């Protein structure tokens, strides 16, 4: 056995033994040895390794079909179509992802306003919290935090105005209503800020509390209206339209058409191959007829209780048989898992023999 094979075998075995013990060892024992806290991290590591298969798949496709195209092997045009589809879908979805992230980052800057004012309020109100506001506390003074808040809100409001979002939109009534809502909240928020700047913030009086709550409330309304507008704008660009064409226009229809062919093949097979030649095939045909007729509207025209008969067939004989099949498959699956665990099955491990 070479070192590479030994390494693969060892990792496979360790991975298997880890999940085996994690499953059978009581939770209290896992807690004592510190596995319980580490498990989510370990589990995520396995998920990441699994996700790498997507990358491997892409590399495999590019190598396999790329060589077909380069050397113009038989059917190379299909390979070219596949590669073009892969690149265009990858490009469009990546561009859309980047765009969504950019919009989300922009929106987060606005959502923070409400969270910031709420945090100031909760810190200043919670006297039991050692980190809550007090003149000698660890947190910055209330006055300083409120000043930072107003400065930040003015900055954000300025940014949104500079983005001149009024110039965008599809001109629909809904779009105009949303912009009106945004404008209304903007005015209310600006008015709140003017008031915040004129009062003293040495202590959190009741009136100051109400003022900060109003800032939070209007900032929430402003953020919601702005996010709806930005999302709508983001959905109207070229990239989302290209995505819609690729996914809903092409991929969905091709996928559905491929699966629909199955129905046609079943019909052809029903005529050409489904012969009643034995007791077993007669039983199968009767069961198939009852199940089919029991789930369609026309079934009860033949026999009123057809749906109930179908239900009985599925619940009783079918469940019994399927359980037996599942038990058999589970035992086979267990054997397969053991063979994989001990690397008996894989080609890599057998190479050394």
């Amino acid at each position, binding site marked *: 056995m070479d070192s590479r094979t030994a390494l693969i075998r060892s990792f496979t075995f360790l991975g298997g033994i880890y999940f085996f013990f994690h499953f059978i060892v009581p*939770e209290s024992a896992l807690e004592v040895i510190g596995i319980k806290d580490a*498990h*989510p991290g370990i*589990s*995520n590591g*396995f*998920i990441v390794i*699994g*996700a790498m298969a*997507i990358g491997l798949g892409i590399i495999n496709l590019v190598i396999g079909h790329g060589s077909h195209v380069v050397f113009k092997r038989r059917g190379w045009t299909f390979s070219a179509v596949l590669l073009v589809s892969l690149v265009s879908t990858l490009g469009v*979805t990546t561009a859309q992802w980047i765009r*969504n992230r950019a*919009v*989300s*980052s922009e*929106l*987060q800057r606005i*959502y923070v306003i409400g969270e910031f004012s709420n945090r100031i309020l909760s810190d200043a109100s919670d006297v039991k919290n050692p980190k809550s506001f007090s003149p000698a506390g660890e947190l910055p003074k209330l006055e300083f935090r409120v000043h930072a808040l107003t400065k930040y809100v003015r900055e954000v409001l300025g940014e949104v105005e500079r983005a001149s979002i009024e110039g965008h939109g599809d001109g629909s009534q809904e779009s105009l209503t949303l912009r009106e809502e945004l404008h209304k909240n903007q005015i209310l928020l600006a008015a709140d800020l003017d008031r915040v700047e004129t009062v003293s913030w040495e202590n959190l009086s009741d009136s100051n509390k109400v003022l900060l709550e109003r800032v939070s409330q209007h900032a929430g309304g402003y953020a919601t209206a702005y*996010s*709806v507008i930005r*999302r709508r704008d983001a959905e109207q660009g070229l990239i989302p339209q290209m*995505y819609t064409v690729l*996914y*809903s226009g092409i*991929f*969905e229809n*091709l*996928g*559905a058409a*491929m*699966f*629909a062919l199955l*129905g*046609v093949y*079943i*019909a*052809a097979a*029903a*005529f*050409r191959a*489904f*012969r*009643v030649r034995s007791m077993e095939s007669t039983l199968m045909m009767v069961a198939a007829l009852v199940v*089919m*007729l029991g*789930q*369609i*509207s*026309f*079934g*009860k025209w033949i026999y009123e209780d*057809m*749906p109930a008969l179908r*239900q009985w067939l*599925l*619940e009783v004989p*079918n*469940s019994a048989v*399927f359980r037996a099949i*599942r038990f058999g498959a589970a035992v086979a699956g267990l054997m397969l898992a053991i063979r994989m665990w001990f690397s008996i099955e894989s080609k890599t491990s057998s190479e050394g023999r």
Partner: protein
Amino acid sequence: MRFSHRYVYLLMIAVVAIPIVFGFSTKPARMISAERMYSVVENVSIVEGDIALVWLDFGPNTIAENGAQAEVLLEHLFRRRIPVLLLSQYPLSEGLLKTIPRKVADKLNIEMPEQEWKYGESWINGGYKPGSGNYIQSLVASTDISTFLGRDVLGMPIEHYPAFAKITGVEKIKLVGEITGLTGVFDTIIQFFQKKGYRPTFVHGCTSITIPEAYIFLDSKQLHGLLEGIAGAAWYGELLQRSFPQSSHKNLLLTNTALGAAQIAIILLIVAGNVVSLYSWSKRRRD
């Protein structure tokens, strides 16, 4: 006897197309498992902070069946104002996670203009999650699912959406729905979406091919309701219409009728095939 399969293909196309083209639909057959599912969804009790989790684990290939199931389930949850977190274990469902809830919300917004169903309140899209069983185990073990999920597909932290900000643990998920045409995906949820003291109320939508497998879990009560193919979705739509008379599922009924006609055609083809075979056999014996 020589017979071209092209005639069979033509017959199938005609049988499926006629009800759709001429807008002819019939009342769907009663589906008892769909009734159970309707009752389960109708009786889920939630308080503020509770949500439903729906896995849309299907792609365009089974959209005819699974798409209709997802629509009726989401419609019911939206009507009940239960916030829905959408996730998927199947990468090809990525586009459907966006379009299906949007379609249902648009339908309800038109039906009831005085109310609103919108992204972030009625539903959020958590997107495709790789890792299958490992991911589900981590999700279930998490004591703060909002943080565990991180961001939605738009890149927004889940905590920004008030209805989804405080999913403190899996106990907050009052209903788990799973729509798929794949084998193995559904079992993973049955197997791992549980922990000590918590078993979800679980409903499932499957394609006609996977119905037999789903029944064993329905029988063992690990599954509380089942939508069987288009027929199940059509009956669920019928039940929705009884409770909400303004709810219309015209296209679903048309598809269900077309499917019924196709099944009748298949039955007739089986009978015809056997008659022809019997005739040929008797002719050979006579000769």
